[in-house]
């Protein structure tokens, strides 16, 4: 389809400069140079008029100059001996400008001239160029040629920016030949007109060979735009230079334009490709091949309320793109970020689908308020935590006590990019919510082109990757007998409850680890999308289905069905634009309420699960049958809608009004049932019960914005002004229903005989702000970005609801400086940037600033009484986080190597805490701001390299590393608050005070600790003897990615690494080894103390409460022995794919055909004592090792 647009293109103009070539002004020769040269030159001066009349025949140049000087008064500088070598000249001009006269005079000579004020410098042999360049930037080459020849260069800056490395060696080569050798490899052409060299794109000659197209009528041009692979580029803007004629290529990359002059220059632009300029020279058909932008520095990067590029960004933003997300077979987008974002720690708490993740960007800022970042999906703020719910064990817990992760309800396949905003420059515009960083999720949008149908399907399986080496039946029984003997307890005495020894078959053996967590989880995923569009309408429709089963016995699954759509429409003049997008997901999770991981520690001789008749075996109530846990049904269902509408109108090409409207609704219903059969028969339970949760979070947001761009001086000023109005309404309830006489009715609340409302939630949160950004870019060299926001939040009391936040960011792209160019030609990009500013944190509950009253549980005198909940403090306000960042970014060898290093220091003050007050006030604490200061600082490093790049092979690597520290800088009056128990000045917030364990006393066989006086004891006291401080923050962490491409094959390998200390499994059991309750143990316990003189690492077995060993065990749980190295290197992701070659694909009428293998958590290298160093738990399922196989077809 062809479409001609009159008026100015809507698409971003290249580098913000006007269409057409740009005059690079010749720098006036420095006066010093003139003076130096003057000594060797003959100087003469005379005359005053501007126009010249010459009629000279066969005279020396000298004479001509003198005549001109007489008439005009201009001085001439030249080397006398050179001029004398030239024979006579003739010149005949009448009343022409002096330049023309000189030009005419020199026409037959090798001389050329420059005018500097009223001085005319005449030099000879200008066309020869001597150049020795290695990796020199093109603009430096031009400068040098200009210096040698005096020729002026005209070029579009965009044309040459990315061809910035030239390696040539010329000795007095003629100018034209020199230019040809320099420019030709770069696909550039040139023309010399008078003393001006115009640089332009090489015309594509193949166009002439395209005879399949009819010859266009005069004045009309047709053309096709393709990429280097020959694939059509849709949506490229085609502009006739110097006119307002413009069009956009269609799905086949074709375009046509009418009424174009024969000698017009056509410019073709596209965000992802280099700009192409083509001089028509009468050609009616223009075929252009656009080169993809080489540098990732120029890829769009999403920032708050807009986009920028890595090159021009003054803030710290890390981007993870769809191509990396799609390589990972995970169902929560947070999982895709692990190890990939410097400064962001993401811990998967459990391997269960839907489970929680803990997320921290640049450390823990707040002592008592939330530390979650702000999530924004297509401009719509998204909850970071679910509402209080039934709290399924497998889902882990969040800060507010709820379980699960709201991000589970976003389909990773629908995501185009995730941008993590970290420093003040990037986050201050989010004001009161930016303190903990911001995660911007952008979903996929329709693109111009013919309708594409893409189908992507994968299936796979997951398993627990690490298991514990547990005792076998013999070893287990020996441990138990030895414990009884150590304690001097007879197996049959009442104080020994040992059904494992007395009731159970002591010859039985079950590998419970295999039974409970040895299963295989199955993955099924199918995504289909249709996208395409014209210049008027672009659309994307997608649907997805994802099913994941658990690894426990039984057949339970989590199923997600999702729909994603996006429609964009433009008015025909491209001024008005409207976009609507939506993501809707329905999640039906039937994984169950219990994580059976801890059941893998059952004694190895525990009874059979089933009786011969198939019923559950309760073994005379000597155990809790683990599979009874699966009888309790737990079924959360979630419906989540995130939708966004964007309306914009461009009054001028530079002035745009825009409004973003967003709506998010998340509905979570849970049912948990306790059938009669859930309980052992001996309990005589005759009725069942159920719990019901109904939660709803709905929020809407309106954000009007004005963008205006303006050239001031040599720079571009971009201004943004906007406002936010937001409201979040949360409603929820948890009901307990009892007295179901029939298990079949457990999900019908009406069948209950008694219903108790356990809790209700109903809160409103309103929020509004005004924000502004001023960005000034001086020739892509000096950048300054000022952001400000005034915020109001309903979470604060009257008079404290509003606050101001702001930041300043500056950048200096020093590689744009000539002297840097010259000195470091290999440096293709270099930028220093710094930012400082403030952002706030309002992650406290709603309504905390007013005294609220709750109703009593039971009525008095027939009515429900009311009682106050809290003290009234209207005066608290935001936590303020002041962020400082210094960074350097650079590109070497045409950006083949990109590196970034940043230092940050965030200081969070005005800490919002429940400040302890005397109870005489009525309550024990009051929410207030404390002059406590928490500091996070660290270094983040990132290196991306293109190791090999040839036509058939590409190898790229990326490595990132974060080193950080967290500490409490000050906390006034700390010792008099409840916080004194666990906070220490100058230490991290998460410090743990533990005892120092000396080892096992070789005489008593019991663990010994050091008390505060240095004396060994098995019975230390808290807190005096707890003198060792354990810091579980990672010391450093990061990731290492390698991508290999060979023809159609692509291999991507990603390692994640963390250096940290964590709680090991030695003391994770509540009971000491030897207790019946302690169940089975790791084989490590075999190295125990048995008799005096034994040097053992594990103390003697015990099975009595109150025995010294039992007491010592409890202290050991809080000793330095319970912590050990939990560092790991994990092969987090491997993706291997094969893409069918175009020829074959075409034969099968496919645009793309790809098959792939993906693996997640494939290998973990660690010394960690326990199942998994990431979640460090024996109770929760570790992240699974997942293998998937898939196929992707684009029709």
């Amino acid at each position: 389809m062809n479409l001609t647009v009159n008026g100015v293109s809507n698409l971003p103009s290249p580098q913000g400069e006007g269409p057409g070539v740009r005059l690079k002004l010749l720098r006036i020769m420095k006066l010093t140079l003139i003076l130096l040269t003057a000594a060797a030159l003959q100087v003469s001066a005379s005359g005053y008029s501007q126009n010249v009349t010459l009629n000279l025949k066969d005279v020396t140049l000298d004479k001509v100059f003198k005549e001109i000087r007489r008439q005009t008064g201009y001085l001439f500088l030249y080397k006398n001996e050179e001029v004398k070598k030239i024979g006579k000249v003739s010149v005949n001009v009448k009343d022409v400008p002096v330049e023309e006269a000189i030009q005419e005079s020199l026409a037959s000579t090798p001389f050329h001239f420059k005018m500097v004020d009223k001085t005319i410098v005449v030099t000879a042999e200008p066309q020869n160029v001597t150049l020795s360049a290695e990796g020199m930037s093109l603009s430096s080459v031009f400068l040098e040629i200009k210096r040698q020849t005096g020729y002026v260069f005209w070029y579009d800056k965009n044309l040459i920016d990315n061809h910035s490395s030239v390696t040539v060696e010329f000795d007095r080569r003629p100018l034209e030949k020199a230019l040809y050798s320099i420019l030709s490899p770069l696909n550039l052409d040139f023309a010399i007109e008078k003393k001006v060299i115009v640089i332009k794109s090489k015309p594509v000659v193949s166009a002439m060979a395209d005879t399949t197209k009819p010859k266009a009528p005069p004045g009309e041009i047709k053309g096709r735009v393709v990429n280097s692979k020959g694939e059509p580029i849709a949506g490229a803007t085609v502009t006739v230079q110097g006119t307002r004629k413009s069009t956009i290529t269609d799905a086949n990359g074709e375009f046509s334009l009418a009424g174009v002059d024969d000698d017009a220059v056509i410019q073709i632009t596209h965000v992802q490709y280099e700009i192409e300029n083509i001089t028509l020279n009468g050609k009616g058909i223009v075929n252009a091949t656009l080169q993809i932008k080489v540098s990732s520095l120029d890829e769009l990067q999403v920032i708050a309320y807009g986009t920028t590029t890595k090159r021009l960004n003054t803030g710290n933003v890390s981007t993870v793109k769809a191509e990396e997300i799609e390589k990972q077979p995970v169902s929560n987008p947070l999982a895709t970020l692990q190890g990939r974002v410097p400064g962001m720690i993401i811990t998967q708490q459990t391997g269960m689908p839907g489970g929680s993740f803990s997320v921290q960007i640049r450390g823990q800022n707040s002592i008592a308020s939330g530390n979650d970042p702000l999530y924004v999906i297509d401009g719509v703020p998204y909850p970071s935590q679910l509402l209080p719910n039934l709290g399924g064990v497998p889902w882990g817990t969040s800060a507010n006590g709820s379980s699960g992760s709201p991000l589970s309800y976003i389909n990773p396949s629908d995501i185009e990019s995730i941008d993590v905003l970290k420093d003040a420059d990037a986050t201050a515009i989010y004001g009161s919510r930016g303190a903990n960083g911001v995660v911007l999720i952008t979903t996929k949008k329709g693109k111009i082109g013919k309708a594409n149908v893409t189908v992507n399907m994968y299936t796979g399986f997951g398993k627990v990757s690490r298991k514990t080496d547990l005792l076998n039946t013999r070893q287990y029984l020996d441990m138990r007998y030895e414990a009884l003997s150590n304690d001097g307890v007879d197996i049959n005495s009442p104080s020994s409850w040992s059904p494992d020894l007395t009731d159970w078959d002591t010859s039985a053996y079950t590998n419970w680890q295999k039974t409970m967590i040895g299963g295989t989880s199955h993955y099924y995923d199918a995504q289909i999308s249709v996208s395409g569009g014209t210049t008027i309408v672009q659309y994307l429709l997608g649907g997805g289905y994802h099913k994941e089963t658990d690894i426990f016995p039984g057949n339970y699954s989590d199923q997600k069905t999702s729909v994603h759509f996006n429609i964009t429409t433009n008015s025909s003049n491209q001024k008005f634009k409207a976009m609507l997008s939506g993501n809707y997901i329905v999640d039906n999770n039937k994984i169950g309420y219990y994580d059976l991981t801890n059941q893998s520690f059952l004694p190895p001789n525990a009874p059979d699960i089933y009786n011969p008749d198939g019923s559950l075996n309760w073994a005379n109530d000597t155990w809790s049958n683990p599979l009874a846990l699966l009888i309790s049904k737990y079924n959360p269902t979630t419906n989540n809608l995130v939708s966004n509408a964007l309306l914009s109108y461009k009054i001028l090409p530079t002035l745009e009004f825009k409004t973003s409207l967003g709506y998010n609704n998340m509905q979570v219903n849970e049912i948990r049932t306790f059938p009669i059969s859930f309980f052992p028969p001996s309990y005589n339970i005759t009725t069942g019960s159920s719990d019901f949760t109904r939660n709803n979070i709905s929020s809407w947001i309106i954000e009007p914005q004005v963008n205006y761009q303006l050239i001031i001086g040599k720079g571009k000023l971009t201004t943004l002004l906007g406002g936010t109005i937001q409201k979040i309404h949360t409603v929820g309830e948890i009901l307990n229903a009892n007295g179901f006489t029939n298990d079949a009715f457990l999900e019908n609340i009406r069948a209950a005989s008694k219903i108790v409302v356990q809790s209700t939630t109903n809160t409103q949160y309103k929020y509004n702000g005004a924000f502004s950004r001023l960005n000034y870019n001086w020739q892509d060299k000096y950048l300054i970005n000022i952001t400000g926001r005034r915020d109001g939040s309903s979470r604060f009391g009257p008079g404290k609801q509003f606050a101001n936040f702001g930041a300043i960011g500056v950048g200096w792209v020093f590689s744009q400086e000539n002297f840097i160019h010259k000195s470091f030609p290999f440096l293709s990009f270099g930028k220093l940037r710094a930012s400082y500013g403030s952002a706030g944190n309002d992650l406290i509950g709603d309504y905390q600033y007013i005294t609220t009253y709750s109703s009593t549980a039971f009525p008095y005198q027939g009515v429900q009484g009311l009682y106050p909940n809290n003290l009234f403090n209207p005066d608290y306000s935001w936590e303020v986080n002041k962020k400082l960042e210094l960074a350097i970014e650079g590109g070497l060898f045409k950006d083949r190597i990109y590196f970034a290093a940043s230092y940050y220091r965030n200081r969070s003050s005005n800490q919002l805490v429940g400040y302890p007050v005397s109870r005489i006030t009525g309550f024990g604490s009051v929410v207030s701001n404390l002059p406590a200061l928490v500091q996070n600082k660290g270094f983040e490093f990132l290196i991306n390299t293109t190791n090999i790049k040839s036509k058939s092979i590409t190898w790229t690597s990326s490595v990132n590393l974060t080193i950080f520290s967290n500490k409490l800088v000050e906390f006034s009056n700390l010792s008099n608050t409840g916080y004194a128990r666990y906070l220490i000045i100058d230490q991290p917030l998460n410090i743990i005070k533990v005892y120092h364990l000396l080892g096992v006393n070789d005489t008593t066989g019991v663990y010994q600790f050091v008390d505060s006086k240095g004396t060994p004891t098995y019975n230390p006291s808290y807190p005096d003897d707890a003198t060792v401080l354990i810091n579980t923050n990672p010391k450093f962490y990061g990731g290492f990615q390698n991508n290999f491409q060979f023809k159609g094959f692509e291999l991507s390998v990603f390692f994640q690494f963390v250096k940290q200390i964590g709680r090991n499994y030695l003391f994770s059991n509540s009971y000491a080894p030897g207790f019946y309750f302690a169940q089975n143990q790791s084989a490590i316990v075999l190295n125990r103390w048995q008799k005096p003189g034994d040097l053992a690492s594990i103390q003697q077995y015990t099975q009595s409460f109150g025995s010294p060993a039992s007491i010592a065990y409890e202290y050991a749980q809080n000793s330095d022995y319970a912590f050990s190295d939990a560092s790991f290197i994990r092969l987090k992701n491997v993706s291997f794919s094969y893409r069918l070659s175009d020829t074959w694909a075409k034969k099968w009428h496919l645009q793309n055909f790809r098959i792939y293998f993906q693996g997640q958590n494939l290998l973990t290298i660690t010394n960690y004592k326990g199942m998994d160093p990431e979640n460090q738990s024996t109770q929760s399922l570790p992240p699974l090792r997942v293998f998937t196989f898939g196929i992707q077809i684009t029709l």
Partner: protein
Amino acid sequence: MVRANKKNILAFFYFKNVIIYSVVTILLNVSCKKLVEIDPPVTVLSSDVVFSNNASAAAVLTGVYDNMIYGSSKFSSGYYSLSLLAGLSADEFKKYSTDPTQEQFFVNAVSSNRVRFWVELYNYIYTANAVLEAMVASPNISAEVKQQLIGEAKFVRAFCYFYLFNLFGDVPLITTTDYKVNALASRASADQVYSQVIADLKSAKELLNSQYVAADVITTTSDRVRPNKWAATALLARVFLYSKDWANAENEATAVINNTSMYNLDTNLNNVFVKNSIEAIWQLQPVQVGYNTYDAYYFVLTSTPNNAKPVALSTFLVNAFDSADNRKKDWVGTITFGTQTYYYSNKYKISALNQPVSEYLMVLRLAEQHLIRAEARAQQNKTSSSQDDLNIIRARAGLPNTSANDKTSLLTAILHERQVELFSEWGHRWLDLKRTGTVDAVMSIVCPQKGGTWSPNWALYPIPLGEIQNDPNLIQNPGYQ
């Protein structure tokens, strides 16, 4: 992006106005607080809403009574009630539980991190202060309701201070809800506290309805579960007695006693503690489903005393009864296992669960008013009228008239009568020993029996440790860390 040519510069200046206008509009909007004003919470009520209508304002005081009686470890009732713990501190109970808190009160060595009552009473005081402050500024509350609520709030505040002062000595006097001031309060003198308590009660006496009212605080009812004018008068009589203002104590007690249309001694001792007893001046209504009073639940022995039934009556108390005393028959229960007989307080009788609620927890009753007047009269050397009051109580118990016939012997007889009449109720015995100056003499004998040696500073309980830590101006009672 275009160059700043003339046309665009003009456009800029034109649109500059638009931008400035937009800025102003947006900023005005922002400073318009409406955008951050939210509806009041729904699952909890903000204080503004609570005090915007009669019913919910009244419900706040209902909530105080509800909280006093609800739960099994409250000041008023249950496992850690004043009746139980102060009874252990004095000579009323012997402890059989292994509970460390009960242990400490029993051996009179209460540690500052196990002491009770303080937190709960100051919370009620906060609520009372909140009501009093709200009533000043609540135009929507009717005058009638306002009057009753102010009266009840002042009564509650006085009631709490009475116990705080008598348990802990000088205590901070908190009369506002402003935590910034209150958090740093220091102890007020006895005079200050008493004058506040007396002023509150005098005021409450004037404001409160003379009848008992329902939860709406207007409709009258037969349930004696909200304080009325006579409850304020009765408490005032007690406070005057404690502050040794004998004449006023006598006057206030007389006022109550003379109201015979409402209050009489029930001749059947077994009916004294039933709900809406004719003797009741103020009772608390049990609210927890399935329970009558926690006093019955914990005191009435159905097995050997243990952690669930933590106490039995001490031999000091059992031996204090005259053998002819009907109170020993009706109010003291016995249970025998083997050779061991245990005595227990049987004033409240329904200890089983899921019985109809027929007993309310007695807070103020007429018998105490007779004993107050007897003591006040004896102190004023009104021997004969003092004897009259004492004999009324003795007669009901089936005892002959007192033989005491002078001030000293009468005071001794009255203290004894209070011991056997008011035992296991609200720590009367512990408070009586302290205010009459007999505590050292009595406890020096009792303490060794409980396994310790009496220290006079134990007469005051320690202030909770956290309070000393959080309020630098609070000083611990002597003898405690």
